[in-house]
């Protein structure tokens, strides 16, 4: 009797241990891309480098609303996790699938869409927190104390007000420069940013677009006053901004791996994983601007704090 019990227990233990390794072997991660972008490929690469043994399948929606195709893909692949890149992919998958965990990324302004609150959904936002931005800014320019930030009230009031308190905790003062009409950008900047030791360019589409001169005026002001300007994209560093911080897409892929493992291995429910900001950043510094601000006699180890120096010497 005891023998039989022990044998049964042993067989059960062997079965369970093999079953747990089978889970990881059979787990499929289904990537759904809204469209084919280089950044999305970098995310997937970051995922596979962090998780070399993962079995992945990829569907490209090519920018089209192909709900049936997405549905067929999910039914065919039977993934353990669906990873959506872009809002089209995310909204489509969330509409179709209510049980399989979904991780979304590369979605702008997810807070404005209630679907992302669905129980089987978690994700990573596109907004790098101000505390992250200015921690890095201070590492490069420790003397920065007051930051001037032009903003359009219809677009950026919330982010600016949230940032005000965060920067105060860091010992920085945020000078909020309200610009309701981009035509007045230059005068508003001159009037309010005169004594700022740093400038912050938001991703404010009402201020910075092809129809306004705000970008040029901001860069010009920063150079004349020799005030470092923090931008949100490498493109602006090439145009003359001092420094940019954007998302590191490979790290984003690695962060998705981390969330996936929490869902599968730790069996955490998606609803219990808050939507988080991106962890990895990609920073670019303008070498010519650095020399303008500090002169030639600066410590080159500052380049150790960034990912890329522009322009690269040939």
């Amino acid at each position, binding site marked *: 009797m005891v023998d039989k019990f022990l044998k049964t227990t042993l067989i059960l233990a062997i079965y369970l241990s093999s079953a747990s390794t089978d889970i990881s072997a059979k787990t499929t991660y289904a990537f759904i891309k809204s469209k084919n972008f280089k950044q999305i490929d970098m995310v997937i690469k*970051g995922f596979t*480098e*962090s998780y*070399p043994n993962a079995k992945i399948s990829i569907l490209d929606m090519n920018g089209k609303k192909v709900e049936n195709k997405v549905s067929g893909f999910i039914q065919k692949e039977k993934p353990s996790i669906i990873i959506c890149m872009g809002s089209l992919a995310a909204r489509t998958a969330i509409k179709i699938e209510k049980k399989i965990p979904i991780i979304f990324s590369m979605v702008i302004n997810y807070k404005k869409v209630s679907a992302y609150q669905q129980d089987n959904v978690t994700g990573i936002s596109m907004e790098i*927190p101000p*505390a*992250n931005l200015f*921690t*890095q800014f*201070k*590492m490069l320019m*420790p003397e920065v104390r007051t930051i001037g930030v032009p903003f359009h009230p219809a677009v950026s009031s919330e982010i600016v007000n949230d940032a005000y308190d965060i920067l105060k*905790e*860091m*010992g920085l003062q945020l000078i909020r420069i309200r610009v309701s009409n981009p035509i007045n950008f230059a005068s508003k900047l001159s009037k309010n940013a005169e004594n700022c030791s740093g400038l912050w360019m938001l991703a404010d589409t009402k201020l910075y677009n092809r129809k306004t001169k705000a970008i040029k005026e901001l860069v010009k002001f920063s150079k004349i006053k020799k005030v470092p300007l923090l931008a949100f994209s490498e493109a602006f560093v090439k145009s003359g901004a001092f420094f940019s911080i954007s998302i*590191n897409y*490979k*790290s984003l892929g*690695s*962060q998705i*791996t*981390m969330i996936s*493992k*929490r869902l599968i*291995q*730790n069996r955490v429910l998606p609803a219990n994983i808050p939507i*988080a*900001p991106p*962890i*990895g*950043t*990609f*920073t670019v510094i303008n070498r010519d601007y650095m020399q303008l601000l500090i002169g030639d006699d600066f410590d*080159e180890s500052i*380049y*150790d*704090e*960034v*990912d*890329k*120096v522009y322009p*690269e*010497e*040939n």
Partner: protein
Amino acid sequence: MIFSIKNLVSLQKLKVIFKNQYIMIKTFLNTEQVISVKIKLIILFLFLFSIDLVFAETIFIFNPETRITRIRKVKSGIENHLKSKGIHTDVYIFVKSEDFENSVSRLKPDLAIVSSYYYSLMASKYKWHAVLSGHKDGEKIFTKVLVTLKSLNNPQQLINKNLATVSLGASSLSFIDSLLPSGLSTENIHVVSVSKDIDAMIALAFEQVEAAIVTMASFNKLKKNNPVAVKNLHIMQKLNPIQYPKIAVFPKVESIEKLTNALKEMPYNGKTKIVLRFFGVTGFTHNNNLGDNK
């Protein structure tokens, strides 16, 4: 224009080719014409040697953790420095380990300058041996630390938790394993790869992860610039010391002393400064008293 024929034809073969061509020409020409051709061939031969056609050394470089992106500057810095010492080289700088590995059999490098973890990782495959080690102001090693939230005191509390650190590709997962305290590995801790220490520390400060592996210097710098960010963090453990990049010689490569001496003499100023900064060092020194697999 400098040619590199090392991989095309040996000196002996070149002599044979010239000799055969001369014999063929001699059959069809008269004495005066033969003498003229002979003189021209000698001049051509001397010309080719005068511009040092001979046996450029091939150097492979793989140091993915570098912050320096000015690759062309690094390549020309090394090549020009060695040229000033009378050594001609072809330098290949790789960003991905797969490209490095795929090129070894094809290009048969003489020497490699690689990060120390990669040197150890590939030691049994390439059977190379380190002749020089990088140093920073005399120090051959640097230390990373395991930083966690103050609420955590024991590495075992990190099992199934999240850790942020600089890592570049799947090949560096084994490097992270070598750093982690006993009982922890990339199998039982979820690693988030970032490109620089500040990202890892900020992720930890915001409690997006429970731990980070960073250099001591980075931690101290953040502590100085933003003490609020680190108020809830502490160094749980100093990790195993890490060596700076190594200069390794591939097996069956001979007469490499001149080249290695030239690399050892690379100064931390002028155009070689960026080369050394690429490796995160201020110079290279003999790999004395260090085992090949460390």
